[in-house]
């Protein structure tokens, strides 16, 4: 499995099921914030451990971000969802959710968790339904507020080597709100995903 390449058909199918899942998540977010969420084309990649940080830094030109991650596991698939927010987005989001007054770090955290609950929850639910899986979600963990994007995953010391990554950059129409949802699947989940998708194609 060490020289495993991501097969085009799998990449395409994953992009498509993610597209549908994130569409549902976007719909919920749009209803919560009463705005239109611009849907991008998700990017599917197989990343080496050493490439993850590079990929993260290329997500954002700004240095200061806040992020939440949440593990998920089920049907022999496991991974983590990472939601990364531009710190400059909070003012606009606070306005959309009609928080009044100063946007304190406490309010930012509430907003971050609210949006993480929706985007991660709905996206995983959408994936699970399409692929006929069930996931347990762990408690979300705050990776940091106002930190360098490079510092987000620096402390990870578990033995993973490579991961299947699905990157979904969300934007809100007419607002300067930028956030990225990253789904990271462990290497041994790939075969299972492949089988599930194969099953869908038949």
């Amino acid at each position, binding site marked *: 499995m060490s020289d495993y390449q991501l097969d085009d058909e799998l990449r395409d199918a994953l992009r498509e099921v993610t597209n549908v899942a994130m569409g549902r998540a976007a719909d*919920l977010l749009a*209803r*919560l914030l009463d705005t239109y969420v611009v849907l991008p084309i998700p990017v599917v990649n197989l990343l080496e451990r050493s490439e993850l940080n590079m990929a993260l830094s290329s997500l954002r030109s700004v240095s200061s971000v806040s992020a939440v991650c*949440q593990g998920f596991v089920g049907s022999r698939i496991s991974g983590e969802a990472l939601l990364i927010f531009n710190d400059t987005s909070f003012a606009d989001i606070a306005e959309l959710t009609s928080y009044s007054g100063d946007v304190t770090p*406490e309010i930012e*955290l*509430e907003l971050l*968790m*609210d949006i*993480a*609950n*929706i985007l991660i*929850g*709905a996206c995983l*639910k959408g994936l699970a339904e399409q692929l006929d899986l069930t996931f347990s*979600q762990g*408690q*979300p*963990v*705050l990776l940091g507020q106002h930190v360098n994007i490079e510092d987000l995953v620096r402390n990870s010391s578990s033995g993973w080597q490579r991961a299947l990554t699905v990157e979904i950059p969300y934007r809100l129409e007419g607002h300067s709100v930028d956030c990225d949802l990253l789904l990271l699947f462990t290497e041994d989940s790939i075969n299972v995903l492949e089988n599930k998708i194969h099953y869908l194609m038949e």
Partner: protein
Amino acid sequence: MSTADSNLAEFHWLMDVLQTIDVGILVVRLDNRILAWNSFMENHSGISPDDAIDQDLFEVFPDLPREWFEHKSRTVVQLKNRAFTTWEQRPYLLRFKNNRPITGSAEFMYQNCTFIPVTNIRGEVESLCIIIYDVTDEAINKLEQQRTNAQLKELSRLDGLTGLYNRSYWEKQLEQEFRRQKRAVQTTSLIIFDIDHFKQLNDINGHLAGDHMLRQVADVVRKTIRTSDIPGRFGGEEFALILPDTPPDDAVRLAERLREQVESLVVEDEQAGPLQVTISLGVAGWHSRYERHQDWMVEADQALYRSKAAGRNCVTLA
């Protein structure tokens, strides 16, 4: 055993599990009436199911922040999407005592919560299940770690002898102030000073007396400046101050005050007896011709040398 009996048996052990599981399970109807209350809830709150079931949640827990809770539950119900809250957002949903009242260091139980929409067979959300996890140990560890990190960070900024900022941190602050000055309305000024004939004082009275003097001068600095000013020690007998939003004329007045305070300072050294020193100071306001923050420092440094040349114990404005 009949099917009914075996269903009943299954129901019994399922209820048993729900009762004994070591997480809090609370189910409320959409009108906030409590539907379920397991042993964890009973034991930690001291409220029996008889006093909780069918009661309004906010009457049972008057301290529960209503607005926050209703915002969370509304989102969960409307979007049919579960929500998680962490102790970092809110240390607890319901105030329970720490699980370890004797050896624990926290006063209360830190909690993570999961809000789960419970639907009926028609797919409508009828009630809300809230699961409460005790995460006190995890929270305490993380808070402790954050405190330690903050302390280490602070320590790495300070000069060990005087407690003023060390040169590298002070210079970083100056760099920032230099960038800020480009669009600031008010001028910031810089003071650099050193203790006159300090080498002599060291040679005659020993390094311990010298260190003693440095600490006392640092104390004078701390007492004389405002909280917004940034004092640093450059190593040796050289000190520097950033005075944000302070025009050069005001900076000269502050420098003059510092000079007088030090001049009148008498340090009682056990070995050497009473010691007195004077300082020479250079002041420089920000100027648009500076290209780098170092240019600013050079300007203040040159003013300091003019003070030395003018016979010491005086202030020169660049």
